């Protein structure tokens, strides 16, 4: 993990804001993060012990103990997030990254969070799902005045309930969340909780989406549903870290959804149970097996399973457009349209033209064609067997034999034991290849034609 003295590294920027140095002297030093990689879990150096989580492509912020109070310092500020290698997006976040750092505390901890606003507009922080005094709930205008640029506010409460929570602004939130302002909050149980199992791997991420015009860098904040960058913790496949598990490990995955649509999260090769929501742990009697759980807007889901099947298992949102990068929704379907005789003509007018889409869109995954600057491709990523044709909410659960307990490194591609891999039929070919379409394209003689006979004169 890479850290730097935040304010020392931005001395001129400090002058530009109205944060007083004297006031800052009493503040905990804000930790900051520059790397978009997954940081190793932060083993608590003090306070009550707990089993830390691993924030996918993120990190947990350290704290300062002050007379028994855990003090954190969040700085809301503009950041540049590398959403995928070579694809940079101007976001707003906390402490150098979007999402901001994960805050991990233990049930019963008294927590004091200093929030400094270095955004160009006011903000607040709402502690999604927490039991706290009303005045700490962070709803600008309702429960507190907004934190003006340059100002620092202090939130203080006891983390009363164990579970998976989030934090995000509740002031101009449409813009601020569209710009990536959010973070995870994990409250670990104090001691053993009857509904909370001990796990060996505890992963956490937030689902977020942006609308970044191809060739630009800043999300369009007014987009409601037609987002084109589908992320987990502001990263898109193939840049989302794999979730690694030793065979037999109990694995927990905590997912929070701060987009404007639901995401059916699907895991291959295993069944899991939803063991908790942001409402708390689900009693074991209320759980049922699943391979997909829908994480609705503004919800958190905690799923658990035993990683007992070796392999590289896909973990993804089941909305197929959400495992894609930007695409032209207005681009017509070209499947089955013969380009014969036209390619040369088009190339005469548009010299760099190549046919795509005639057979489907997979051409896009295979062809490496130049794209506009800073544009995330619609399909990208290559696996051991070829292009994955994905780009978005997709990663893998990698289950391996005999991994170290704290080994979170990518173990590489799975080596399939003999006889466990789909293979090509080597016998006699299938009988006379049947044409893909029995009828001429566009005609279905068995169905009544809605077309007037006269109109068919145009067909040739």
């Amino acid at each position, binding site marked *: 993990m890479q850290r730097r003295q935040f304010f020392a590294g931005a001395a001129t920027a400090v002058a530009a804001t109205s944060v007083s140095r004297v006031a800052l002297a009493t503040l905990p030093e804000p930790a900051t993060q520059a790397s978009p990689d997954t940081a190793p879990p932060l083993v608590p150096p003090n306070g009550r012990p707990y089993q830390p989580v691993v924030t996918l492509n993120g990190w947990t912020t350290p704290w300062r103990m002050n007379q028994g109070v855990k003090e954190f310092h969040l700085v809301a500020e503009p950041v540049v997030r590398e959403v995928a290698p070579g694809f940079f997006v101007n976001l707003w976040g906390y402490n150098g990254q979007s999402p901001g750092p994960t805050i991990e505390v233990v049930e019963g901890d008294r927590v004091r969070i200093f929030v400094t606003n270095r955004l160009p507009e006011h903000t607040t922080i709402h502690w999604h799902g927490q039991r706290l005094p009303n005045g700490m709930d962070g709803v600008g205008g309702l429960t507190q005045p907004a934190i003006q640029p340059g100002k620092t506010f202090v939130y203080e409460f006891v983390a009363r309930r164990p579970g998976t929570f989030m934090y995000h602004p509740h002031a101009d939130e449409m813009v601020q969340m569209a710009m990536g302002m959010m973070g995870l909050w994990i409250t670990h149980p104090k001691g053993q909780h009857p509904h909370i199992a001990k796990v060996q791997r505890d992963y956490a991420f937030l689902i977020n989406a942006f609308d970044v015009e191809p060739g630009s860098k800043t999300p369009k904040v007014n987009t409601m549903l037609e987002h084109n960058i589908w992320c987990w913790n502001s990263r898109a496949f193939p840049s989302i870290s794999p979730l690694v598990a030793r065979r037999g490990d109990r694995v927990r995955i905590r997912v929070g959804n701060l987009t404007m649509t639901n995401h059916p999260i699907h895991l291959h090769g295993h069944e899991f149970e939803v063991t908790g929501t942001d409402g708390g742990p689900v009693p074991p009697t209320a759980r049922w097996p699943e391979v997909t759980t829908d994480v609705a807007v503004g919800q958190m889901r905690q799923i658990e399973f035993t990683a007992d099947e070796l392999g590289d298992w896909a973990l993804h949102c089941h909305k197929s457009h959400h495992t894609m990068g930007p695409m*032209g929704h207005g681009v017509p*379907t070209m*499947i089955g349209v013969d380009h014969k005789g036209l390619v040369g003509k088009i190339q005469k*007018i548009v010299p760099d*033209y190549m046919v*795509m*889409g005639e057979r489907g869109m997979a051409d896009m995954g295979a062809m490496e064609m130049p794209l506009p600057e800073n544009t995330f491709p619609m399909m990208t990523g290559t696996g051991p067997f070829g292009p994955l044709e994905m780009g978005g909410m997709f990663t893998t659960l990698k289950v391996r034999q005999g991994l170290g307990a704290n080994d979170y490194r990518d173990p590489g591609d799975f080596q399939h034991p003999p006889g466990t891999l789909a293979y090509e039929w080597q016998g006699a070919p299938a009988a006379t290849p049947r044409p893909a379409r029995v009828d001429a394209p*566009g005609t279905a003689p068995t169905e009544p034609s809605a077309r007037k006979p006269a109109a068919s004169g145009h*067909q040739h």
Partner: protein
Amino acid sequence: MNTTEPTVWRLTAAAAALTVLAGCASVSPDGLQGRAMEQAARSAPTLAAQLPPADLAARSDAQTQLQVWLAQPLTQDNAVRIALLHQPALRVRLAELGIQDAQRVQALQLPNPHLTLGRLVNGHEREIERSLSFGLLDLITLPWRTQRQAEARDHATLLAAQDVLQVAADARRAWLRAVAAEQVAAVHSRMVEAAEVGAELAQRMARTGNWSRLQWAREQALLSDAHASQARAQLAAATAREQLHRTLGLWGANARFTLASSLPALPPVPADVLNAQALETQALEQRLDLQAARRQLDTTSTRAGWAGAAALFGSVGLGYQRNTTTERDSGHRDTTRGWELELPLPLFDWGGTARTAARLEVERSAAQLQDTALRARTEVRTAWLTYRTSHDLARQQRDEVLPLRALIQNETTLRYNGMLASVWDLLAEARTAATASARAIEAQRDFWLADTDLRLALIGALDTPATTLGTATPAAAADSRGH
């Protein structure tokens, strides 16, 4: 014969000598055409190379050059050369110049002396009268008239030179318009190609069931529009070419030449046209119409000097008489000789009317000069403004609009690569880019037309109104996205 005879002949000889001294008695062998060309070359040094040679033999050689010029793609300079040799209107004008010259020379010749012979017979006498009379005025005013005719000749030459320059300018303009129109028509063909591909692909989309009849129809409509625009562009090209034929005086097989494929590149604004004030001064010194008006004023002033005298003494005549009387019976011959002077009596006309008319003529010429100078100044200013603006506009098309269109087309291709845009988006951009290049061609043409106008305004009157840069019509809407 007796001693008096030579006196008559001496008088005649003296008159002839005066005429020779005046030096203007002979008709110019090429009807002043060479002089007009020289004047044109002096006024427009850049044009000098295109002017037909002064002497007639060399000019007929140049005529044979025509086929050589027409065998290669026609350049602007060759168009000017051809026009100056072939343009019928110019040949009419130059022939008139020759006729004027002949009339001028004729006007300078002294009237022939009158020889009167009479034979009178009565009963006893036979009388033979011989009288040689001569109008004195023509002789007295010869130096003035000589000067006036020289001025008139210069005046005519200046005007003819200006006609030459205008024909050259017309040839340039017609060539620019024809070349540009041909280029624009070619651009329209490219737009039709793009629309054809779009419509064809749309039809295949509809046939496969991927598109509705509506979507296909939209692409068909674009193709129809493109065809209509192409037809208009082709007509414009043909019309411009016909105008070029007329301006160059070409027809039949000679009209089947190829045009140069592009307009000359845009030059940097030359330093000599940067200063409008200096250009005005230059025009006032150089312009042929001004020189001609000045010459006219000189002529009328000279004429005013002797107008009164001429009116008064218009019919002063000098005569010599020799009469022989022969007595029929005796055969005795008696000869009388003597001078005769004929003088009008200025009882009614003292020459005042003529003097007034002459003075008014001077006034008219002065006003004419003033008017011409005024026109020259504003023509130069207008031409200069148009030149600068059209240069800016053409440069903007070349340096900003076309690179932007290219960038947009390229970026659209990149978006097509990322499946972010469709092939119809590409074709629509191609059509828009083609429209932009047509505009760039027109802007380039407008600049060269303005350049022609400015050069002409510096040396002569603009026969046609200066190039007007139309208010831009909005770019053809590229709303033809394929979805």
